[in-house]
């Protein structure tokens, strides 16, 4: 199996805080891989490093064999590697449909394409995906007026609209009504199976991640603590200690 995303000995510190220390991991194409760890263990930092939000201090990041360590965020996204945010980010004063329409893939597209006439296929796709996440009735509302959970769903739909090869989700179920979480898991799985998107998911909810991921990495204090299949990780004493120790 070839790794789609390879992270090799990546370090990142903020001033004195060493948020990531020589982390190496890889995500294989077509898989759903989880990333867990106590609060402040450096998960979000790693995501930001991978997609080029900030420069890394050391290490190499490769996507589909191509080094992306020094690419800027927009260029990484254009390769088909999209992330979502822990503190949901949507375009609050635009309607949901507009949020979707501007989220379509920028791969290979130029500035000029923004001036092109409307594309019915794109509009149809936007509606389908809004339907997919259950926001279709609200598609003409300003996104900022949606509830937090709905915004999370919208952000997920926007990410799908981008037709990424790989999608990195930062806590997709945080803030979502527990009764709806199963629906989210189901949609994530469908995104993986039907749309063929590789998923790399940060998640605090153990039930969710055990259910979802085929392979899990665990961070603690900025270092890679453990990795393996869900049941292996769950029973790993170090992981248990890390979680207990942090609370």
């Amino acid at each position: 199996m070839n790794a789609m995303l390879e992270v090799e000995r990546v370090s990142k510190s903020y001033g004195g805080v060493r948020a990531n220390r020589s982390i190496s991991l890889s995500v294989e194409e077509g898989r759903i891989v989880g990333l867990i760890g106590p609060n402040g263990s450096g998960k979000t930092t790693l995501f930001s490093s991978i997609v080029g939000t900030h420069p890394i201090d050391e290490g190499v990041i490769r996507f589909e064999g191509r080094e992306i360590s020094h690419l800027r965020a927009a260029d990484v996204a254009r390769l088909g590697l999209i992330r979502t945010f822990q503190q949901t980010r949507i375009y609050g004063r635009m309607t949901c449909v507009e949020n979707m329409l501007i989220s379509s893939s920028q791969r290979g597209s130029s500035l000029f394409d923004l001036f092109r006439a409307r594309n019915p296929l794109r509009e149809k796709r936007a509606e389908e995906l809004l339907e997919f996440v259950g926001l279709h009735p609200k598609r003409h509302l300003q996104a900022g007026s949606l509830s937090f959970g709905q915004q999370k769903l919208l952000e997920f739909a926007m990410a799908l609209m981008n037709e990424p090869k790989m999608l990195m989700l930062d806590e997709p179920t945080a803030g979502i009504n527990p009764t709806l979480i199963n629906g989210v898991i189901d949609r994530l799985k469908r995104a993986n199976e039907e749309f063929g998107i590789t998923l790399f998911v940060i998640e605090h909810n153990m039930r969710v991640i055990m259910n979802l991921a085929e392979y899990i990495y665990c961070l603690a204090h900025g270092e890679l603590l453990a990795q393996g299949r869900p049941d292996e990780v769950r029973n790993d004493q170090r992981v248990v200690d890390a979680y207990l120790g942090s609370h």
Partner: protein
Amino acid sequence: MLDNIEILVQAPVITLDLVLNGLLLGAIFALAAYGMALVWGVMNIINIAQGEFVILGGYVAVVMAAYGIHPLIAVPVAALLLYAIGWALYRTVIFRIVDRDLFTSILATFGISIVLQQLMNTIFGGNVRIADAGLGTVFLMNGMVSLAQVKLLAFALAAVLGSTLVVFLKRSRLGQAIRATAQHPRAARVLGIDTDRVYAATYGLNAAICGACGALVAMAYTVHPYIGLPYTIRSFMIVVVAGLGNLAGVIAAGLGLGAAENVAGFVFGTQYQLAFVFLLLVVVLVWRNRRLARKRGYLK
């Protein structure tokens, strides 16, 4: 221009003269910038009317001098008067925009600055005015370096005022309340600090600082209804370079700006001195942006 640079290189004493005179002016810039940093840091407002407060303080000195009162006395009077004006502005306008976005506060204080400008123009006329303090000039190095005593006096007063202010903010109850509010307004409120009053006092204090600066400006330099904006821009620039809450930085940047401006005025010609100030602002901001660009943060 090149000729002028050559003069500076060949006669370093002229450079010395320019730099020294610039440093004297820079102290006033630093003081006004300190006030801006105070309002910015505590209230999260960038006060575009800063320069108009300065000029208004200057007119207090001008008017008093016209009645034969020595401008030195005008310094505390201008400070008090401007405190009242600042406080009144807070109670009428500023309190409504404290928790709004920065664009709102910029535009609102811009509006205030226009009103003040026009009022000053209507009341005091459009001429360049000074408040004569009747002091001589000190000559150094065989008369090659000349320093007006009044500028030396202004420098000394600015230093005294600045240090008083720092001690005041450190020691007094109000000062402590201001610092607490700056750090965490909600927590300050929980601890029983009336943040609204703190804001009013802060805004008034800044206006008072500007008023005192203005009296010094009128004494040692000149005032005119429409030269407020450059003072605002200088303050802003100094705060950007120094960073909020960095006193030593504000002093260094203020003095440096004064010296740089004076030398630039000589090199490019005084008609370009203002252009220099504003272009320097652009350069400073572009530089800051470049520096930040690559380490732009981590996004939750």
